[in-house]
């Protein structure tokens, strides 16, 4: 029982990281209807910015994180403007997908050029070591608790923003029907830029938490968590904001339980196997809605 609880806590700890990344992923997909495969690399960029400010310049994370958020925001909006927007109306929807993969490689290699391939050890931005339960047998790390709280706050803020504000309503309209939204006087370009701004800012925050939980920073740090978070977003129902949160937590818990009780080597195979089963039974994911195409 105790070992089960420990695994559950470890799973939530991993899942909370997936959740916070998946929120940014699903936001961009939900509105702009494109998979930003470079999202994981925005996370890496954000992490390097924080690393430089905290470890090299000795500044407080309180300053470093907002700077990283702003820089990632600029990066995200610029990427969208330069690389994605010109292809938005390309003949094949694959064009923009392939470009996103290209952006991902570009960012990784630029980081490789600037920072080198050496692993850097990230100083946690959350100094709190956490709490212990059951007489010290179970430890919940501070970063886990803060990550879960932060992702709930982000979840609520996004829900509020999308459903209650004018800009959020514009996003929903763009998501539903782009040309109709244009006819209603909504500036589609501006709305999608705003979506990317929010998504990229979330990537910087996710970077701070990812690297605090797993403090090793390389130019490839964001790649694998990015893919896992994408899986989490699909599992929860891509495009659904609460779905991303739920998908992330479920994925993390399944992964750790599979590792504890089945095999440390097969955990990925099991995780992806479950994804296949979920998608077969419910193709829209756990919380996804079926969107009917109107003719």
């Amino acid at each position: 029982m105790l070992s089960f609880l420990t695994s559950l806590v470890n799973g939530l700890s991993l899942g909370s990281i997936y959740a916070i990344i998946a929120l940014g992923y699903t936001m961009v997909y939900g509105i702009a209807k494109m998979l930003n495969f470079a999202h994981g690399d925005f996370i890496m960029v954000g992490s390097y910015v924080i690393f430089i400010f905290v470890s090299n310049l000795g500044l407080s994370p309180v300053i470093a994180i907002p700077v990283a958020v702003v820089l990632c925001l600029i990066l995200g909006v610029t990427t969208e403007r330069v690389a994605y927007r010109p292809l938005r109306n390309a003949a094949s929807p694959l064009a923009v997908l392939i470009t996103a993969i290209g952006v991902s490689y570009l960012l990784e290699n630029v980081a490789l050029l600037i920072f080198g391939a050496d692993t850097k050890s990230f100083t946690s931005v959350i100094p709190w070591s956490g709490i212990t339960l059951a007489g010290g047998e179970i430890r919940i790390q501070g970063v886990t608790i803060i990550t879960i709280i932060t992702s709930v706050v982000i979840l609520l803020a996004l829900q509020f923003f999308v459903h209650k504000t004018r800009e959020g309503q514009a996003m929903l309209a763009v998501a539903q029907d782009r040309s109709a939204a244009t006819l209603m006087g909504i500036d589609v370009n501006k709305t999608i830029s705003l979506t990317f701004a929010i998504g990229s800012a979330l990537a910087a925050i996710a970077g701070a938490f990812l690297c605090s939980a797993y403090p090793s920073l390389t130019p490839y740090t964001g790649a694998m968590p990015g893919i896992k978070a994408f899986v989490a977003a699909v599992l929860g129902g891509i495009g659904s904001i609460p779905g991303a949160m739920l998908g992330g937590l479920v994925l993390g818990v399944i992964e750790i339980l599979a590792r504890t009780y089945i095999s440390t080597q097969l955990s990925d195979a099991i995780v992806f196997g479950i994804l296949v089963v979920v998608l077969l039974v419910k193709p829209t994911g756990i919380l996804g809605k079926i969107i009917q195409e109107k003719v």
Partner: protein
Amino acid sequence: MKKFRKAASVVLAAIMTASMVAGCGSSASQGGGSGETAGSAASEAAGASGDATFKIGVIGPLTGGAAAYGTCVANSAQLAVDEINAAGGVNGYKLELKSEDDELDAQKSVNAYNTLKDWGMQMLLGSVTSACSLAVSEETKADNMFQLTPSGSAKECVQYDNVFRVCFSDPAQGTASAQYIGEHKLASKVGIIYDSSDVYSSGIATNFVAEAANQGFEVVSQEAFTADNNTDFSVQLQKAKDGGAELVFLPIYYKEASLILQQADKMGYKPTFFGCDGLDGILGVENFDASLAEGAMLLTPFAADATDDLTVNFVTKYKDLYGETPNQFGADAYDGVYAIKAALEKGALTPEAGVSGICESLKKTMTEISVDGLTSEGMTWDATGEPNKSPKAVVIKDGAYVSAE
């Protein structure tokens, strides 16, 4: 648009033709000082015996996750080559060195090999890691090119008779680690965390477990991870802890090891960590809290703080030139260049012997030489390509490697 394309293709064709001509031109004048990446000493003084030089290629991960190994190998080999050239070369000929990057990718390693072959490589010092070395050995076998891997430690790396190595094989590392732990009674219960997607790591783990039975300690947990899943080790550590392991054996590279040490610390689990040569480099991880590695041990044939003349000379020169402390991989490469020198001298070879001629001669003379190097005294090789040498254990104390003896 069409016109533009036509014009562009003509221009491109012209550029290609020009570059081919330029390519021929430079290869014809090679040895006369055109080898730009080759050592400065090598190209300047190439006049000793005409223009011919012995051309040694180096392949290793100069960028990417294992760059700490590859760059140290390339730098150390260059250091050895410059020393040898300054002392008059080999059989009156200078050595020339060129390094290519494989980014720890077997396919890119083969590409690097082909690039070096175009350059005119006669002997290969590489590749640095097992999987890459293995991939390249298929090519060297087909070309009958002499290959000496400084640190490709997987068993299969030297399966062909044209391939030798400087480091221990994985079986030898796994067995030697188990013997060391047994002989020094470091622990009675041992946990293992290894990378099942890496031939180096799984090779050591298998042999470690096999030898453990003879050494009177128990392996209580043997847990793997894969390259795609190498950030969260909570489960593997938990299993070792639940099994009561006093020592955790980490036959893995330092990047993952640095994460394992940090996560164990967060869990409040403090066993002795014991690794192999892959752990060498952990103190070089930028911003890593070295106090976490306090007391960790590793089995390595080279300790940079050793006080023998050879090591002091090598480490001092390396620090002067590159501003870093060299690791064991660099020491292997340095010894590798001297082994090639000794074997070339034994066979009284000249560069005119050609790739195949050099290879045939070296296959024989490598087994006849004895090299006093950085990684061992009196190293010898047998025809299987395996070196005979004795390992040393080092322990991390106050943020530095100290001999454990």
